[in-house]
């Protein structure tokens, strides 16, 4: 049995990282849109009031202003909920940030159904799909608090637009301090040979780990991969999974249309065609409920992942 892990907020890990990095790098500025208490950028605001800009409830203005700040050499981090960023300011992200390839970092908070009681309007489920089609941007969803801290360093080092997606809830800490984090390089959490479970965000990755444990009892060896980067997608890791396990399940708190799973499938289709099953939100809007209830309602928990794994394996081409 997997030990019950410690639960931590990734948004707090990011907020603390910004405070840490803000001390070293004076070019870091943070912009928010009246949600600093929720995204926790208020920590940065308290520490560096001269480098924090609350732009009011005006998401398009956040992005345009950030573009202008980047033109003067600042490194803006822009935070608000993922439904509004990119939802409200996609065109600004496309033209003013990505076309110009400016060094602006986006923080899309409250990703996934696990946002819970606030319901559909506040659960970002389409953000990856919206952003993935834009050239020049890097898309990350670090798994847990430990990985988020490392990702923050990597994001700062990377010159160009990046979006960091994160959930609202405390999530299980499943990575280790000594694990490497590199943008675009997925991490294998568990080795296996019959099927690969590719997850994003530790809430669902933990379900993948539970599923792998159950599958093991049935004699099925499942590999579990932490695909923290949706773009650029780690093709090498996917090829390895396809060759060595022959079946894939993707699992994410996002629509199955256009998300990380789609990126995996696009790669497979042109590299090593492999049966894939997609765990995620199946083309419907979110609902109010507890995160646990919603994971059942939307088919994201371990039992659904197990079923998907068996189905993917059954679809393998007979040798």
């Amino acid at each position, binding site marked *: 049995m997997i030990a019950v892990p410690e639960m931590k907020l990734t948004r707090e890990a990011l907020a603390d990282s910004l405070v840490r990095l803000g001390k070293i790098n004076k070019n870091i500025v943070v912009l928010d849109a009246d949600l600093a208490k929720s995204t926790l950028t208020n920590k940065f605001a308290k520490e560096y009031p001269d480098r924090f800009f609350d732009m009011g409830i005006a998401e398009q203005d956040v992005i345009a202003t950030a*573009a*202008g700040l980047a033109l003067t050499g600042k490194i803006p981090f822009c935070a608000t909920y993922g439904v509004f960023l990119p939802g409200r300011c996609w065109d600004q992200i496309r033209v003013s940030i990505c076309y110009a390839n400016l060094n602006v970092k986006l923080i899309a908070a409250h990703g996934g159904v696990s946002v819970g009681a606030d319901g559909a309007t506040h659960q970002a489920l389409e953000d990856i799909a919206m952003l993935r089609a834009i050239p020049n941007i890097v898309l990350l969803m670090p798994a847990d608090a430990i990985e988020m801290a490392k990702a923050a360093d990597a994001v700062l080092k990377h010159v160009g637009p990046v979006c960091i997606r994160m959930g609202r809830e405390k999530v299980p800490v499943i990575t280790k301090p000594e694990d490497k984090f590199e943008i675009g390089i997925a991490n294998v959490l568990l080795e296996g040979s019959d099927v690969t479970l590719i997850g994003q965000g530790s809430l669902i990755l933990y379900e993948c780990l539970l599923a792998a444990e159950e599958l093991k009892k049935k004699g099925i060896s499942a590999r579990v991969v932490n695909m923290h980067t949706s773009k650029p997608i780690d093709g090498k890791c996917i090829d390895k999974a396809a060759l060595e396990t022959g079946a894939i399940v993707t699992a994410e708190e996002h629509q199955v249309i256009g998300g990380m799973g789609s990126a995996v499938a696009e790669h497979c289709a042109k590299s090593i065609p492999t049966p894939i099953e997609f765990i995620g939100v199946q083309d419907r809007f979110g609902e109010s409920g507890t995160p646990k209830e919603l994971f059942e309602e939307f088919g994201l928990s371990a039992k659904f992942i197990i079923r998907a794994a068996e189905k993917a394996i059954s679809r393998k081409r007979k040798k």
Partner: protein
Amino acid sequence: MFQGKNGKPDIKYIKEKAMAIRKDILEMLNAAGSGHPGGSLSAADFFAALYFAELRHDPKNPKWPDRDRVFLSKGHACPVLYAALAESGYFPVPELLTLRKLHSRLQGHPHMLKTPGIEISAGSLGQGLGIANGTAIGLKMDGSDSRVFCVMGDGELQEGSVWEAIMTSSHRKLDNLVAWVDYNNLQIDGKVEDVKGIAPLAEKFKAFNWHVIEIDGHSIEETLKAFKEARETKGKPTMIVAKTEKGRGVCFMENKPEWHGVVPNKEQLEEALKGLCVIEGPSKSQIENADA
């Protein structure tokens, strides 16, 4: 090297430059076969005054950190900006004829990563003022005395994002920012006042806590006076509301919405160039426009 406010501006020279810019606009659009003459011509006098009297810049060093910034928010009017840049020496004037061609540095809408002197990528209306705010804030943080000029269309003001930015500029007291509105009362579908009126414009900006100057946008003298007033205004951003005429300088284009996005053919180009001359004072249609 920069032309500008140290020496006394030479009005006659600026007017000649406005003429040259208009000629460039017509020729490059004819060569391109598509593009936007109306909103380019209406801003020609402003760009001549800006680049040849006011701006602190160095065409041989486009990334000079101490330069003033020009953000063309209404990106479709880029022919006027390309012409001003070429006439200033950022790139050769003949290159203007590559406008809109494959692999040209002169894209159909301006791209900052391709063209020297282009500060922002634009073409989607309603974003430039917000970017100008960010740069004005950044310049102030760095203790720089460089200034930011942002050029907007009057139809563009229908975009909500512009008003988000308008609130930011005054809230943050960006007195290093000058916005110029090309108040030609035309957009694609007709008169701005018919499509979705924006009047009374000056009063709106005043209510949003801007310093507002209303001028005849084709008067070099009034434009230079407005620049001076903007320079001397502290604690507030300055909005220059410039009454203009779309297609200004070409008789058959003046005040005609059809000439927003249609270019002159060879015969029309010849006719237009023949008719171009230094125009003094407001034209008849402009007076009607001002009353609207």
